[in-house]
């Protein structure tokens, strides 16, 4: 028993040590020749899987540009490893050094900024309401007495709850365990509306059996900066990422990438998301920053 405790203590100390020294990403990838990218399997056009261990998406492409610049700095070709992350594990995996750069759909907010750092925002999400075209729901007020679906482990739920309270609207929350299931709740009639990030709604509608049955309605419930995430206290790597992003915006590459992912047909089904860059996204490009979501709400 004592031996086991000792072994446990030693491994904890070792883990703690690794944790402490992992903050210099450039030095770390230079030494190992490996960079681990955190990817998502279904975050709409921002990041998703093509199956077979292949990932793609808008943020994925931005990350590939950052890694290309990183390779120039370290002076060698890097071996890119992909680590699938979820809403639940992405922050801990970045914190503990498993993932070096997370290229999914993470909202940059003040709580998370205590644990991790974010690159400058290149995509601002609007939280919207999707509903059946025939439902007669046109705004938040119409949700009174309705079943509203949202996905477990996302911040939209919290937002919904605050809205519900502020406007005296009473609706029932139903939770899908992922976006596909939340959309199934709407499709199968278990929910009257699905509240989620606009591009996820647009993407789900685009791939639905009958896209014309659904529409996105109402004013945006919130705007949220979505950003690429990496470890805290690593100014050199953060500067490198932000320089890449600034160069991409300046050269027009960013707008071209946006068009590629949100306006053109994309694999695997060659459907269009059809979501033009919002005013908030354009403003983020014009004035690059890593402000958390809270700063957007103050405006």
């Amino acid at each position: 028993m004592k031996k086991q405790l000792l072994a446990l203590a030693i491994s904890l100390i070792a883990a703690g040590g690794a944790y402490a020294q992992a903050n210099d990403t450039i030095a770390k990838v230079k030494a190992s020749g490996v960079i681990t990218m955190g990817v998502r399997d279904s975050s709409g056009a921002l990041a998703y899987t093509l199956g077979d261990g292949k990932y793609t998406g808008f943020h994925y492409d931005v990350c590939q540009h950052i890694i290309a610049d990183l390779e120039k700095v370290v002076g060698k070709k890097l071996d890119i490893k992909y680590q699938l992350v979820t809403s639940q594990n992405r922050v801990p995996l970045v914190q503990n050094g498993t993932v070096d750069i997370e290229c999914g759909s993470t909202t940059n907010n003040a709580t998370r900024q205590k644990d991790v750092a974010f690159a400058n925002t290149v995509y601002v999400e609007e939280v919207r309401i999707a509903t059946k075209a025939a439902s007669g729901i046109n705004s938040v007020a119409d949700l009174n007495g309705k079943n509203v679906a949202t996905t477990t482990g996302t911040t939209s739920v919290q937002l919904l709850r605050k809205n519900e309270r502020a406007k005296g609207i009473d609706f029932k929350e139903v939770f899908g365990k992922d976006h596909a299931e939340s959309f199934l709740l709407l499709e199968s009639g278990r929910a009257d509306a699905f509240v989620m990030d606009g591009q996820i709604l647009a993407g789900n509608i685009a791939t639905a059996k009958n896209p014309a049955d659904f529409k996105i309605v109402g004013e945006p419930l919130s705007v949220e900066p979505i950003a690429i995430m990496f470890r805290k206290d690593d100014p050199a790597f953060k500067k490198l990422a932000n320089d890449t992003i600034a160069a991409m915006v300046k050269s027009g590459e960013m707008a071209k990438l946006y068009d590629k992912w949100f306006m053109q047909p994309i694999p695997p089904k060659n459907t269009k998301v059809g979501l033009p860059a919002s005013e908030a996204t354009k403003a983020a490009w014009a004035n690059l920053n890593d402000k958390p979501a809270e700063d957007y709400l103050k405006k």
Partner: protein
Amino acid sequence: MDWQVFLNDDGSGRTYLQWMFDAWGWTLAVAGCSWVVAMVVGSLMGVLRTLPNSPWLVRLANAWVELFRNIPLLVQIFLWYFVLPKIFPAMQAVPGFTLVVFALGFFTSSRIAEQVRAGIQALPKGQRYAGMAVGFTTMQTYRYVILPMAFRIIFPPLTSESMNLLKNSSVAFAVSISELTMFAMQAQEETSRGVEVYLAVTALYAVSAFAVNRVMAFVEKKMQIPGFIVATGTGGGH
């Protein structure tokens, strides 16, 4: 560690602590109701499987057991929640809570039916003949001779099954029941204090399952027949 997080408002005027206890209530409600369904249906099916002169009832009960224990629990829940309402639109109106109680109850009933069958078949044949010899009907033989013995024999695995049921109730989150697992996933996302949230939820699951264990052990002790089954507490490999 920052345990203060449980005192924060979740946006709807209740604290995360209150929300967690609500969620715990849902977990216990799902588990409790499913346990009743599982015990009633499981005992019935287990008994049917051992009837001496009713081959069709035996086949029916066998089919029930094989159906519900060969499909993964999560898949069963989805079948109940999404697929069956598509086929029978009337099921659309059935609340998720009821569906999950029956899904979990039926899944567990197939396992309990196996244990009941095993318990009955573990009895010496002479017990059944004794019942017949004093002129009992099949029903009476089960009621007065076989089942009182069989249930005592299978009490330890029933205890495990009851604890499993409580832990399996976490699948209810897949059909929008706001139980502990869903609370954990949601609260850690909203507060970014996953370690505290998961530790608290772990403790509640452990306390609940251990309470089930203690209650079952108490009943087991009260019910044991002296000299027939080795008293609890003397066995085990410590």
